[in-house]
């Protein structure tokens, strides 16, 4: 049995289906701080992977590596089978890696949508303008078409009546739903969520989780870092527990109720 965390319950997991995201021996260091120490993970298309772990274990760093907000120090990450961040080139008769330029990175990012803990909506734009921004200026979509798309995405997250509100006029839960709509408007294949409900008042967590659940039901490939154990139990196809920069335990959602590793047991006791 390999160390890779492989989804068991992927719906369309045929013999030759390509993983949506595949991490192979991923290392990341910030200066002398070794944060990720060999992460292996496989995420099949249409599945939901929930990453659990104590604060500081490197969960955000891992997501940010997938989306190239950080640069890989070692190992390899593949999205749809394509290596991200680098390309192989011939240099002095040897095959070496070369860092991708901005344009190539932007192209790879287009497959990924990301939702942040602190929403990061553009405060000088209305909800509608936030969602229209990338379709208009990155995909060069026409204004009216982009508007239609943005309205549809905002309706999908239940904010059809908040189009002309600025982020400062919305609750945290509403802001996060706008952020989800903004990411979805770029039609990503994979959605990354970094503690999307951690900055919310408890009574607002449910509305965001229900949007995410709906998204999972529609077959979106998702990697979710969260402390919402209930969500993990219900929605996850794969649960990964990280601690100290390594994957300590992984498996189906059932491992939440039957953890093997003492560190995972300990963590669950603190969270539940």
């Amino acid at each position, binding site marked *: 049995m390999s160390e890779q965390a492989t989804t068991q319950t992927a719906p369309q997991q045929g013999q030759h289906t390509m993983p949506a995201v595949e991490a192979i021996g991923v290392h990341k260091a910030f200066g002398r701080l070794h944060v990720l120490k060999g992460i292996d993970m496989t995420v099949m298309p249409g599945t939901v992977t929930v990453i659990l772990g104590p604060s500081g274990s490197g969960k955000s760093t891992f997501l940010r590596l997938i989306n190239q907000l950080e640069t890989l120090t070692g190992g390899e990450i593949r999205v749809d089978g394509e290596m991200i961040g680098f390309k192989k080139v011939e240099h002095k008769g040897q095959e070496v890696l070369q860092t991708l330029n901005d344009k190539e990175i*932007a192209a790879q*990012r287009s497959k990924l949508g990301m939702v942040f803990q602190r929403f990061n909506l553009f*405060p000088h734009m209305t909800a509608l303008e936030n969602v229209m921004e990338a379709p208009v200026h990155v995909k060069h979509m026409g204004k009216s078409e982009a508007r239609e798309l943005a309205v549809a995405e905002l309706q999908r997250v239940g904010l059809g009546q908040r*189009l002309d509100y600025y982020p400062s006029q919305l609750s945290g839960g509403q802001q996060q739903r706008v952020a989800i709509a903004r*990411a979805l408007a770029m039609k990503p294949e994979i959605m990354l969520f970094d503690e999307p409900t951690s900055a919310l008042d408890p009574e607002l967590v449910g509305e965001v989780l229900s949007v995410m659940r709906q998204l999972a039901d529609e077959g979106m490939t998702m990697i979710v870092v969260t402390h919402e154990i209930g969500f993990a139990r219900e929605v996850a196809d794969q649960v990964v527990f990280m601690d100290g920069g390594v994957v300590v335990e992984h498996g189906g959602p059932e491992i939440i109720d039957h953890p093997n590793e003492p560190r995972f047991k300990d963590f669950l006791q603190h969270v539940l």
Partner: protein
Amino acid sequence: MAKKQVDGEGLDIPDRIHALPVRRTGPVVAGVIVALLAAMLAQGLVTNPRFEWNIVWKYLFNENVLEGIGYTLLLTVISMVVAIILSVILAIMRKSINPVLRGVSWFFIWFFRGTPVYTQLVFWGLFSVLVPKLSLGIPFTSVSFWSIDSSTIITAFNAAWIGLALNEAAYLSEIVRAGLEAVDPGQTEAAKALGMKRSLIMRRIILPQAMRIIIPPTGNETIGMLKTTSLVLAVPFTLELQFATNAIANRIYKPIPLLLVACIWYLFITSILMVIQSRLEKHFGKGFEARSIVTEDNGDELDGPVAVSETKKDRIARGNNVKMIGLNA
């Protein structure tokens, strides 16, 4: 100024409180004292014969004075526009990943901030003497693609605004840099994650937000520039307001009334600039006001109908306006 709205107006609130406001004596006392002082000042200004208001009045719309105002405004506008454009470029260069651009920007700021503007203006005035010919070619060779007499380009007027603009750009670029750095890095990350490129992120996301922080000190700098234009006599350029009034004063031996003429005009222009600044602040403050404005909560069901009613849109817009007015009196 929008009228103040009473909390809960039109709502059915039982036992609504109608309390008298706190009794404050401070404003009354201050009001009386200020009114007295103002009256004394006004009386002194109007009745003091040495101010010679008849002469002030006579020269207030004098042809040379009006021409001076024209040139002062022209110099202020041209040098500020050029300085603002240049300062944004310098600030972005300063934060570039390209070390050569960073170095050039650093050097520019170091040089033009580090020497007195008066001296710089003297040098720009002497430019065509020091460098008679401007040419484009390869240094230390005789290869030259293009050349022209300096004196045809660096006229006194051009020397004046170039000198002012370059000096001002160095100061403004630090203001712009502070503005850029005040924008949450999360904004850049979110924009990157949406596939936006660096230049697009700067133009669409960072700069508009930085403007909020940049505008008040830039308004300050513009008003400063209005008065700094009087230094262009170092070039020498002698048609702006300060020089014009001074020339008249020397001719008729009446310095005080002509200083008053200049002051009145400077104050008038400054007031207009302050109105413009306040408009700009309102424009770039969109979305940043406190969230108290829209309070009623409806239609936030997870698939509510689409359209936002006009009335609500208007109300939000109005609410936004109210918040920004008066920030800047």
